[in-house]
């Protein structure tokens, strides 16, 4: 059995990548399952997805804790998540990064394949959706699946949903990433502190789960605790507003799913609190006078 864990962000297509890999494995005559784990999901939030591949029927219905391969769709996740947790010693990390494996610090020296999937996706798909590109890199790095099977699975799965052209472009993204993948060994210098979590016993849990403002070892809980959840690291793009063009219609203020656009005064000027802007682009999309441009936040 070959087990894969995908780390991505909501909107990057980690779930679709896991499913497509399963389909490619089935095309090659294997049995495969793929499933997501959804937390409090929203666009940009860290997500997990899993694929299991075997020659025979797979009965296990639990998450993957000791993967053979970890796929990271967004290297900004490395700052907060120990992506190599549980990875088998002979396992492989496939990572979307502009860096070479030797320059990527995973806190562990481990076989690593890297590809700049974001650039590939932006170039070919015109969107930072890196799931198909990273699958190409996965095929190159693991040899578990042939690139041709992957292309077939991508065309079938994406083509069915989004049209034949989109399917073909995604297959091309996979092929391009396949050809540009660099394989080496990661660095193992940094020590990633496991994120502290507030895990009360049932006796410690506030009655009825009702939370008032409070502080625990793991940080704030209850009303106001969200202030600790800065999301600027999620953003591939960030919005920049042209004050000359802006008519103060406030549609961006209304539509922002994170509430990051602040009205400074009644007369009105707007400010984007970039600490909490995940770069989703809803504001730019809704702006009726094109006063908001999305600019690349990281390369």
């Amino acid at each position, binding site marked *: 059995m070959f087990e894969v864990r995908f780390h991505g962000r909501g909107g990057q297509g980690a779930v679709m990548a896991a499913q497509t890999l399963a389909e490619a494995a089935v095309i090659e005559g294997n049995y495969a399952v793929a499933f997501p784990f959804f*937390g*409090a999901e929203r666009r940009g939030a860290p997500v997990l997805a899993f694929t299991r591949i075997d020659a025979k029927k797979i009965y296990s219905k639990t998450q993957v804790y000791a993967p053979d391969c970890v796929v990271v769709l967004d290297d900004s996740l490395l700052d907060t998540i120990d992506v190599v947790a549980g990875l088998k010693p002979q396992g492989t990390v496939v990572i979307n990064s502009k860096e070479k494996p030797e320059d990527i610090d995973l806190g562990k020296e481990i076989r690593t394949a890297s590809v700049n999937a974001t650039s590939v996706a932006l170039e070919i798909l015109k969107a930072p959706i890196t799931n198909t590109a990273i699958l190409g890199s996965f095929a190159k790095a693991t040899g578990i699946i042939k690139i041709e099977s992957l292309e077939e699975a991508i065309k079938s799965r994406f083509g069915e949903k989004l049209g034949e052209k989109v399917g073909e472009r995604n297959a091309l993204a996979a092929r391009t990433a396949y050809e540009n993948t660099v394989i080496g060994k990661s660095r193992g210098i940094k020590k990633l502190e496991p994120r502290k*979590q507030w*895990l*009360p*016993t*049932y*006796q410690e*849990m*506030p*009655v*009825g*789960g*009702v*939370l*008032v*403002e409070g502080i625990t070892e793991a940080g704030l809980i*209850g*009303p*106001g605790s969200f202030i600790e959840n800065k999301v600027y690291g999620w953003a591939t793009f960030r919005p920049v507003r042209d004050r000359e063009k802006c008519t103060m219609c406030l549609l961006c203020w209304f539509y922002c799913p994170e509430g990051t656009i602040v009205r400074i005064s009644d007369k009105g000027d707007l400010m984007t609190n970039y600490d909490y802007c995940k770069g989703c682009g809803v504001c730019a999309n809704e702006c009726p006078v094109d006063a908001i441009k999305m600019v690349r936040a990281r390369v």
Partner: protein
Amino acid sequence: MKKVITGDHAVAIGAKLSRAEVVPAYPITPQTLIIEHIADFVNDGEMDAKFLTMESEHSVMSAATAASAAGARVFTATSSQGLAFMHEMLYATAPLRLPIVMVNANRTLGGPPGIWCEHNDSMGARDSGWLQVYVEDNQEALDMVIQSYRIAEDKRVLLPVMPCIDGFVLTHTVEPVDVPQQQDVDSFLPPYMPDITLDPAKPALFNTLMLPEYIMELRRQTAGAFESAKKVISEINDEFAKKFGRDYGGMIDTYRMEDAEVALITIGTVTSTSREVVDELRKEGEKVGIVKLRFFRPFPAEDLKRVLSGVGAIGVFDRSISYHGGGHVFNEVCSALYGITKPIINHLAGIGGRDVTKEVIIKMFDLTLKAAKGEKVKEINWHNTRGETV
């Protein structure tokens, strides 16, 4: 002060004496008289409560939950389809540990449509996290509204309570009821003082999304409150008995069980008729007794084991059917008495509001006595049902 009143009227007076502060309401037979009486009390200035006419039972329970979270003592009543319609919100109330009291007038849950007494409505809510107590007369109905607030608001419990009264058999039947004095109720039931409420000045998060890392602990906590409730129910029963002179026994009550060879477990108003049947059978020399199941949630497993230790066979009356064969009480009794090798005979009767006559109850005892003597008796018996033989 004795008053000759219906069960619905008694319940309404119970809510008034308990000083319920918010009453969201939606009418449904046979409960409507309860909220009509309360509407009158509020309108006439006898009761200082916010009476909210809602557009559905789902909204009733939403409003009740929110008002309770805001710190108010909340009362409402429903029945049958109304209870079914608020089913979703029942599940929100209990894990939030909000001590609402809602009387359910037991009625057939359609289809087919029927307005008469059956327990299938409240039995469907048995796993919603509400305590349930079934009563046998109008006095107990009134008294249990008052006691329910004490149980619900006890810091060891903090769970909603659903007193269940048999539709029409109690709701629309007048009998003498001793109405307690307000000052006595006030000294028994102090005002509700929650620790945390919905208050803009002191923000709190209620009913927020919980990840798998937390929900299991919350469920365990709620389950623990059900365990604590058993002791609290008994304590409050005793305190009430001391103050008002009426002792209902707590989780269960028994009648002539001291030397009984056979017991019938009863629920609701059939208990009342069964008392007379037991007296008659005793005159004929049959050593029979009754175990009245008062609380169905929490389920009195330990009490049943204790009082049933000496009998040779156990009859279980059910006014509801769970379609796996027997009724709900039967299932739970079998589960509670697991490992005890005595015949347990299920007696289904009164479903859809069919009258449960003395003859039917005598038949229940007869069959259970036969089982005690080692004769072969069917496990599940549909009494007074055409096409069935019992």
